[in-house]
């Protein structure tokens, strides 16, 4: 489930096990096996994980890995960063291209206000210092999907610097402890996205789609504070949730709205950092951790065998599950950075420095944006824990699946059942059903009110837990029926008549004297047999705990 596994090799003891299941379709799903009552999260920095190499031929060499990330998130805005063309996913090729995007001679960039606000919001949410003055630069390189021959970015002075991202990992033998780790954020910068190249091998040609050219990106640079694939994946997941909560990016990796490049190196603890490689083309949440761990192991193996690590750029091959060198990188590229002459410096204000009589449409006030920041995932989790008394790891699970938190809250609204019960049903049974059928929360045939009704029946002890599960299955299959209908159709109501139940118990004991003897002799399994027999007679309509009570009472008399 949640254990990070490398192909073939044993990772030794990587301490940072995240409470995330890597095999979900829609981002990261919940780990469904948490029943432990772990301690509340403790914030201390865990030790650097030590990885043992596959074959310790030369004795016990300990390696430490260092992972830094460059994350590109597409800004959720109506129009592109420097032009007025629209931003849509999967539009017909080259239908959203303005003159500036196609780099027609004489066209000029005009900065999009919404993109700047998105950058400021993200910077504030990540505890960054917002630079009141930031500059734009040109980064030159030749590629067919970059019509201008340069990308406008912020190399000298980006809009936000020196922030931090906190993410939590579960550690310990049974994932009981929740540890908060922090990764420093070097900077956040605004830059343009490039177009898309579609390689047509059959006709030996490359087709260019410029719909994406010029779309605003937030590049978030994470310092190399992470030490393995799971940590990196968790940090990315947390960033995704923050961006989605802010509304600054939909951060959907499958749609290319979030792209991650990793910088990875290994070294012996205490020695200087090793040569790093860059791994690009990490576009899937599922493979992010795997790719990074593969590269770490590859570097360890190379060094153990006496080879050197090249400072190169590699790509992750999803089919083979390994990183491969990228073809067209000869030496270090000179990007010929120069200031973008068509864009004056970007000036931001706060309430203190706002010029008098300034048109609010023309200026951006950082303080106002800070006041209007929506609730961040960490706050939401904290509130859940306070309000409903659920466990920290469950609060993570609820936020990890799109729409699950809303579903949970809607169920809670309409049921009298305890939050713990609701949590258990939502995270274990409901989510389990979704995952099995590879569905999203909004595709569920069971609505929150239906589940709430079912839980009410359970709470009132109208049905047993086992019966509830049966009803749930039925609800999933046949839409339109209410839980009450199914219960009455299938006659699943619990036997309320205790006297009748006593008579049944008595009858069963009369009918099976041998079993009664075994029970009296102290055989623990015998009583279960009796319970089973009673249940058969009552067509499973009696509460097993009540049956056990009655049997015990009758046996002792």
């Amino acid at each position: 489930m949640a254990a990070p596994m490398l192909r073939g090799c044993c990772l030794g003891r990587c301490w940072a096990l995240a409470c995330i299941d890597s095999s979900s379709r829609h981002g990261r799903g919940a780990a469904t096996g948490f029943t432990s009552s772990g301690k509340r999260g403790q914030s201390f920095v865990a030790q650097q994980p030590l990885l043992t190499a596959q074959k310790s031929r030369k004795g016990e060499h300990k390696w430490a890995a260092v992972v830094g990330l460059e994350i590109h998130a597409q800004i959720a805005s109506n129009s592109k960063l420097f032009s007025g063309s629209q931003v849509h996913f999967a539009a017909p090729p080259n239908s959203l291209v303005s003159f500036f995007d196609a780099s027609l001679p004489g066209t000029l960039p005009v900065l999009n206000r919404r993109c700047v606000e998105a950058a400021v919001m993200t910077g504030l949410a990540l505890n960054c210092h917002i630079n009141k003055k930031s500059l734009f630069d040109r980064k030159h390189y030749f590629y067919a999907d970059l019509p201008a021959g340069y990308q406008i970015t912020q190399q000298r002075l980006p809009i936000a610097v020196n922030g931090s991202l906190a993410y939590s990992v579960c550690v310990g033998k049974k994932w009981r402890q929740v540890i908060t780790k922090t990764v420093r954020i070097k900077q956040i910068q605004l830059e343009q996205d490039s177009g898309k190249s579609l390689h047509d091998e059959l006709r030996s040609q490359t087709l260019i789609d410029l719909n994406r050219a010029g779309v605003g990106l937030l590049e978030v640079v994470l310092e190399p504070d992470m030490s393995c694939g799971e940590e990196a994946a968790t940090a990315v997941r947390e960033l995704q949730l923050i961006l989605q909560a802010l509304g600054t990016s939909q951060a959907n990796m499958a749609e290319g709205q979030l792209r991650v490049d990793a910088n990875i190196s290994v070294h012996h603890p205490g020695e200087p950092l090793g040569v790093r490689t860059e791994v690009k083309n990490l576009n899937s949440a599922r493979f992010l951790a795997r790719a990074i761990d593969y590269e770490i192991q590859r570097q360890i193996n190379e060094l153990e065998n006496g080879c050197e690590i090249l400072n190169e750029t590699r790509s992750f091959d999803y089919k083979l599950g390994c990183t491969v060198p990228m073809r067209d990188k000869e030496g270090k590229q000179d990007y010929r950075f120069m200031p973008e002459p068509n864009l004056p410096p970007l000036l931001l204000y706060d309430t203190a420095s706002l010029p008098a009589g300034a048109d609010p449409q023309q200026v951006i006030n950082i303080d106002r944006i800070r006041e209007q920041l929506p609730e961040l995932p960490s706050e939401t989790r904290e509130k859940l824990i306070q309000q409903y008394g659920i466990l920290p790891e469950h609060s993570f699970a609820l936020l990890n699946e799109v729409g699950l938190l809303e579903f949970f809250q809607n169920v809670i609204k309409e049921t009298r059942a305890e939050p713990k019960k609701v949590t258990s049903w939502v995270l274990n049974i409901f989510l389990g059903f979704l995952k099995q059928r590879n569905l999203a929360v909004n595709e569920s045939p069971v609505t929150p009110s239906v589940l709430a009704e079912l839980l009410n029946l359970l709470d009132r002890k109208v049905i047993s837990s086992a019966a509830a599960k049966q009803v749930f299955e039925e609800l999933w299959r046949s839409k339109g029926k209410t839980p009450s209908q199914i219960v009455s159709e299938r006659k699943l109501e619990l036997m309320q008549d205790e006297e009748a139940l006593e008579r049944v118990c008595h009858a069963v004991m009369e009918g099976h004297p041998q079993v009664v003897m075994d029970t009296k002799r102290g055989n623990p399994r015998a009583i279960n047999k009796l319970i089973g027999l009673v249940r058969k007679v009552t067509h499973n309509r009696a509460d097993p705990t009540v049956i056990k009570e009655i049997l015990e009472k009758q046996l002792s008399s």
Partner: protein
Amino acid sequence: MLGRTLQEVSAALKQGQITPVELCQKCLSLIKKTKFLNAYITISEEVALKQAEESEKRYKKGHSLGALDGIPVAVKDNFSTSGIETTCASNMLKGYVPPYNATVVQRLLDQGAVLMGKTNLDEFAMGSGSTDGVFGPVKNPWSYSKQYREKRKQKSHGENEDSNWLITGGSSGGSAAAVSAFTCFAALGSDTGGSTRNPAAHCGIVGFKPSYGLVSRHGLIPLVNSMDVPGILTRCVDDAATVLGVLAGHDPKDSTTIQDPGKPFMLSSLTDVSKLCIGIPKVSLPFHFTEILSGQIQSPGLGNRLVGVESCLCHFC
């Protein structure tokens, strides 16, 4: 008629002494007669006549758009013109027909100006002679003046008539030649390091370089983004002021234009030249500077009114 100033012709159009279509046709035939100057790369005859007809309708109704309505103008070929080939005198853009108008072109057209054609230049405005475009050099109209022809006859060494011509300066040489030869009343050039003022001086007309940020560069194919400005070439200063009044102003499509000042631009009328004080920047070439100050300026009453001006910008020249 073609030798008059813009303001005079505008008055004539208003009074009905001449119609826009007649004016346009006169200019077009003069352009054809002076083809040897090679001032124009593209002559937009059909477009011009159509615009002239529209202008005529407006004049007939008495709804002229302003001082530029019906006035033939030319535009340097590094400005984007919608539907009209824009080459920058280079093979790289041969056949390139932009789908949009440069802001300055649009502002002229919105005032009713009639576009005669796109003028010749140094390739991509890189040059100061208008000799390096792929469509050949532009010839200075003064090469065909009586004075020059007589001078050449005296010094004739059996040279080819054809090679007996003077450059227009550049890079907006085509625009300067077009205005100087009376084929239009105003022309747009561009100025990065003198490319409007240089040819204006060579062709004996007025060349005006606005301050950076005053006039929009949207649609001007750039040479140096942080120094380019659209320039104005006319036959007198008042005309240049008129055109500047139309072109200047903030453009949301160009982030390097300044916000509108507030007061509209007005050129003060000058009657007494002796009251004028002219500042000459102290360029770091002492030789030229002293020569200018000590040389004889053949204009009445100006000798004592030349003043040396120091500014930090001079050190970048």
